Each structure stands twice: as C-alpha cells, then as structure tokens.
C-alpha cells in the first residue's frame, strides 16, 4: 500500500491532471466539430440527393468501418509522405473528427429515418416546404431519439482519446505511462488513478445525458 502513498504525490497528481485537461480539450473540440460535420453529412445522406448523397454515403461507410487507431496512424505517420504535416494535437483532433463525424452522421441519418414518414407527409400536406418540414417537424422529433446513441458515441470518443498516446500526445494515459516508467512500483497506483479519472468523466457525462433525456422527452 505504501506504493500508493509514494505514487500519489502532488507533483504526479498535477502532472496527471494536466493530462486529463488535454484529454478533455481534445474531446471537446472533436465533439463539437464532429457534431457539426456529422449532422451535415447525416442530413445529406438522408435527403437522397442524386450523386452527392451516394458519394457521401460511401465515404461515411468506409470511414466508419475502419479502426480509429488506423486513421490516427495514417494521419500522423502516413500523411506527411504526401506533404501534410501536423503536430500530435492537430493530428489527434483531425483523425478523431473524421472518424466521429462518420459515426455521428450514421446516428443522425437513422434517427431521422426512425421518425414516422407520416410526419413529413403531414407537414408537406399542411403546406410546408420540404426544408421547413424537415427543420420544424422532423428534426426536433428525431433529435430526441438521437440523444442516447449520440451520448454513448461521445463517451466512446473520450475513451478513444487514449489512443493518441501512440502519437505522443501528452494526454492522461501518456502521462501515467511516464510516471510508472520511472518506477514500476507506481504501476498499479497509476492504473487505479487512470481508471478513476476516465470513469468519473465518462460516467458524469452519461448521468447528465440521462437527465437531459428525461427533460427533453
């Protein structure tokens, strides 16, 4: 047990917290960007515009079915070969945004499709244009259905930021590895700290979401 007392010094703790901040930062930026891009792509896929919806659909399906880790490697190690260089932070955010946008687009599309077609038809019959009906009638109903899958996707995203440790992004896991790299006795204390920190962030988000779902529904 003494290893816990030794490992949890203020210096180590602060070092980890700085990592947690990087994790939260990368997550927040990626969540916001991928929500915007994903919603746009999801709607484009839903409206079945000739040609463009098909292309968008293919890109979404290809991206969604690849491991995020591969996209991360490709962005950081592969793209410099064709002249696109990024620092770890930009590479992590780019790879996560591309991957999560595809995941979110799929959630948005299936959420809209789950709304009864009668809603759209009724709204059109009442004289609304297609876009008005989509925006005022269909989307608000769809959004309520999307909250649970969207939140689990965001939680996945937060957890997945740990993958960026491989491209030397100084996030939580990376910093924990540095600390236990100095002394292997700190290993268990560090894994406990990691588990607790990730758990607190992710579980808190799922609690907020459960509340949101109750008030929205």
């Amino acid at each position, binding site marked *: 047990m003494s290893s816990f007392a030794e490992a949890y010094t203020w210096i180590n703790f602060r070092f980890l917290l700085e990592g947690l901040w990087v994790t939260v930062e990368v997550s927040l930026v990626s969540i916001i960007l991928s929500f915007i891009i994903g919603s746009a792509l999801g709607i484009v896929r839903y409206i079945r515009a000739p040609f463009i919806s098909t292309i968008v659909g293919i890109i979404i*399906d290809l991206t969604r079915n*690849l491991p995020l880790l591969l996209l991360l490697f490709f962005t950081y190690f592969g793209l410099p*070969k064709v002249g696109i260089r990024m620092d770890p932070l930009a590479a992590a955010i780019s790879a996560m945004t591309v991957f999560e946008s595809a995941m979110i687009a799929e959630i948005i599309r299936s959420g809209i499709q789950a709304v009864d077609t009668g809603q759209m038809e009724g709204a059109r019959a009442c004289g609304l244009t297609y876009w008005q009906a989509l925006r005022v009638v269909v989307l608000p109903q769809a959004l309520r259905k999307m909250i649970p899958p969207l939140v689990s996707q965001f*939680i996945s995203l937060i*957890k997945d930021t740990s993958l960026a440790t491989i491209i030397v992004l100084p996030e939580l896991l990376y910093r924990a590895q540095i600390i236990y790299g100095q002394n292997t006795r700190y290993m268990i204390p560090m*894994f406990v700290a990691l588990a607790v920190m990730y758990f607190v962030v992710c*579980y808190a988000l799922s609690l907020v979401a459960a509340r949101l779902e109750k008030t929205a529904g």
Partner: protein
Amino acid sequence: MISVFQQHWQELLVGFGNTLLCSVIALFFSLIIGSTFAIFEVLPSRFLHILGRVYIEVFRNIPLLVIGMFFYAVVPQYVVSINGFTAGTIGLTLYTSAFIAETVRAGIQAVDEGQMEGARANGLTFMQAMWQIVLPQAFRYVIPPLGNQFINMVKNSSVLAFVAGFDLMYQGDLIASTTFDTFNTYIAVGILYLIITLPLSYYMRYLEKKMG
C-alpha cells in the same frame, strides 16, 4: 500499394488471421459473460442486480486501451505471465462484454412479460423460463446490435498493436516502420480491415431493415 501486398502478404496474412482469431475468441467469451450479467440485471435479487450494474458501468466507462495495458503491463508482473495477444484478447473480452450485457438486457426487456409469466404459470422455474422461453426470443432481437458489436470488436482489436499482439494493425505498423512507406502500408491495412467489417456492416443493416 499493390507492392505492399506483393512483398508483405505473409506478414499481413498473419495479422489478418490474428485479428479475426482474437475477435472470434473475444466474441465467444464476451457473449457468455455479457449474457450472464444481463440476466443478473433482470433477476429479482438486489445484490446481483447491483453487481451487474457495477460491472457494466465500470467496463463501459474505462478506455479499452487502459484495460488492455493493465493486462499487458501489470498482470504479468504480479500474477501470471501472459503474452500480448492473450492480454489484449482478455481486455477486449471484458470491455465488449459490458456492451453486450447492455444489448442483451435490452433484448430480454423487449420480450413480452407475458412470456415469462406464462412459462412460470406452466410450472417452469425462473431459470428454466429464462433459458428456454425468454432468452431464445431475446436473441432474435439482439442479432443486429450484436453484429454491430462484433464489427466494433474487429475495429477495437487494433489496440492489440499496443501490446504486441501481432494483429493486423501491429503487423502493418511493423511493415511501415521497416519500409518507411507509411502512406501505402496503412491504406493496405485499411483495405484488409474493410474486407471484414464492410460486408458485415451491410448485412447487419439489411437484417435491421428486414426485422424492423
């Protein structure tokens, strides 16, 4: 990119096989563990209910990589020596079982309550009714989401690369770091992942449409 396949098909094939093997093993065990905890959640016992909840929430809210590295770095030092493939597969199993538990629980709850009541009224015990009446029906509901979990599992198995699990991602990384042709190697690896995940993903969408 074609030259990557031509020169390194053996390494890639080993990785492809290991990724599939790890995913299938993890699927098998996480189905067993996940279903068990799902049943805990619908049992009348308060203790088992809480146990199931804690297990699911813990493994759902901690990154797979942290779980995998724990088995790779900590367990061999203090418990038994296991290789990277085993450590990664155990991590993947525990992580996925929490998601499968949630999926199966939703499936059990989607089965009409009258089924359980009817079975009990006919003299079956709770466990008999669960095994013979409710679970078979629940599994029909959960096949599409389980298929999606399997796709996630194939993708998530790439964390074996962190723990020297000789999976597709690890082999790809190895090739990339010897040939320095990172761009084409990762595209080749991506194609191999898509060969597994893309057909499955379309099939699951087809099943969802057919059942929904």
